[in-house]
């Protein structure tokens, strides 16, 4: 199925979960990512159980702690 991740279109197997997507996308530290699906922030406790649907717009939002 087709998903949009951080603005780019990608193809994944059907029934991919958010956890699987993070690993497919080679996100090394999922702890450092908040996931937004179709403009709503996903509870990180449900990454493993949330199944993505065709056309979902997914954003990986990274913790960024710097400033000085």
């Amino acid at each position, binding site marked *: 199925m087709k998903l949009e991740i*951080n*603005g780019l279109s990608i193809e994944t197997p059907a029934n991919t979960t958010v956890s699987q997507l993070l690993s497919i*996308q*080679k*996100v*090394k*530290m999922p*702890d*450092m*990512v*908040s996931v*937004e699906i179709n*403009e*709503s*922030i996903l*509870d*990180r406790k449900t990454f493993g159980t949330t199944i993505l649907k065709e056309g979902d717009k997914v*954003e*990986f*939002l*990274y*913790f*960024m*702690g*710097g*400033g*000085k």
Partner: protein
Amino acid sequence: MNLSEKQIERYSRHIILPEVGGKGQEKLLAGRILIVGAGGLGSPSALYLAAAGVGTIGIIDGDLVDLSNLQRQIAHSNADLGKSKAISSAEAMQAINEDVNVRIYQERLTAENALTVINDYDFIIDGTDNFSSKFLISDACHFAGKAYSHAGILRFEGQTITVKPGETTCYRCIFGAPPPAGAAPSCSQAGVLGVLAGVIGTIQATEAIKYILGIGDLLTNRLLVYNALKMSFRLLEVRRNANCPLCGTNPSVTELIEGEQAVCDLNCDCTKTR
């Protein structure tokens, strides 16, 4: 308040803008903005807000100017090495514009002092460099009902969002709680392109000025993500989160806490695969 001849000349490029005018300039002169952290983000904010004639600018920072700061913290100069950052940046602001009343806090923002300090200001700029402070600012601004600009930078990327507590998406709506200690890289360990702080810091200053003037659309409910290498600005719509631990329907954060400071693991490389 009536503008003096000198002020009319100094601020003429503002006053000529129909959206600002003499009235708007008077609002800026009556405005009170707190900058937390006189570093990479705080420096450009401080200089531009002073130049803009924001009447009261608070600057809070407990650190001293270090040689490795000068690559990006443009409010400080060689002559300031070893000096308090709060004092050094206050002197830089005062040198630009004597209209500005600078209030200096040579200390860290803590759970104890945060509400007292923040309460004296209209708008808060988060220019800090660690998650503990960023979450503290988000929570304190929520409890004090003060609008703030959040920002973070790392390597070649930065992001920022403006929050009107209780009305718009907040920092915790997006990130919930600080990442586990050891997961988060800091600028000193991961590096940061100096000018990136200028790009993001000046956006924060722009938001503060718009807020004081009450003009335009604030960067609310949208996270701006800037990538300097790609030279891309992405504006991500982010809705308020009903499960937000701070502003959600059943909040778990009900008082100020000083979170654990996330400590970087030198080998972490969490954003490399972006």
